[in-house]
């Protein structure tokens, strides 16, 4: 049973370009969350997708957008890249839970984006 897979693992872009990162959740999971982790910092919540809709969003500008497909996989798009967007982008999947929370998050290995 494959866990969470992310692609690409590494990529280099220049300022102003656009990037698309992809995530396939763990089998049986229907919720995908995206996090940005700058070097030496904790993961910052970008947004969460469930049933192909953005369910929650963190404090990120509209340059950050996403999509979830019927097979629960997800994409993160970042437009007009800035130097400050350089980070490890992590995808986490989970099953939608009740008010107690979705339980454990399963993370992929991340996509390391460098913006020059």
């Amino acid at each position, binding site marked *: 049973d494959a866990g*969470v897979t992310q692609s690409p693992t590494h990529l280099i872009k220049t300022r102003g370009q656009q990037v698309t990162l992809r995530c396939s959740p763990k089998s049986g999971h229907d919720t995908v*969350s995206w*996090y940005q982790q700058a070097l030496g*910092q*904790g*993961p*910052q*919540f970008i947004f*969460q997708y469930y049933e192909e809709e953005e*369910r*929650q969003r*963190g*404090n990120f500008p509209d340059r950050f957008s996403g999509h979830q497909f019927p097979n629960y996989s997800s994409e993160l798009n970042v437009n007009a890249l800035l130097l400050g967007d350089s980070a*490890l982008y*992590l995808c*986490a999947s989970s099953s939608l839970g009740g*008010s*107690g*929370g*979705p*339980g*454990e*998050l*399963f*993370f*992929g*290995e*991340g996509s*390391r984006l460098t913006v020059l």
Partner: protein
Amino acid sequence: SQQGEEDPQALSIQEGENATMNCSYKTSINNLQWYRQNSGRGLVHLILIRSNEREKHSGRLRVTLDTSKKSSSLLITASRAADTASYFCATFHSGTYKYIFGTGTRLKVLA
């Protein structure tokens, strides 16, 4: 901004010693989890404790939760060099239905 703040930011101990790291948060939560991250890799779930629980154990890990003080601690007993990693707490809020991660504790276990 981060919800949780881990303390200390960095910790260096000898193999066999115990490691304790703390997490403080600001608003009420439904559950709190601890995750481990090896350098530049994905996070791995360690343990989850719900708001109505005070203590949980998993192998060499012991987690406590004090909701009155809005704090949690993670104890790793008999540490090993392989425990060297960054450790993060993550709090879940049913109102926002999202997990918020803290700033992390970087643990180094010396052989």
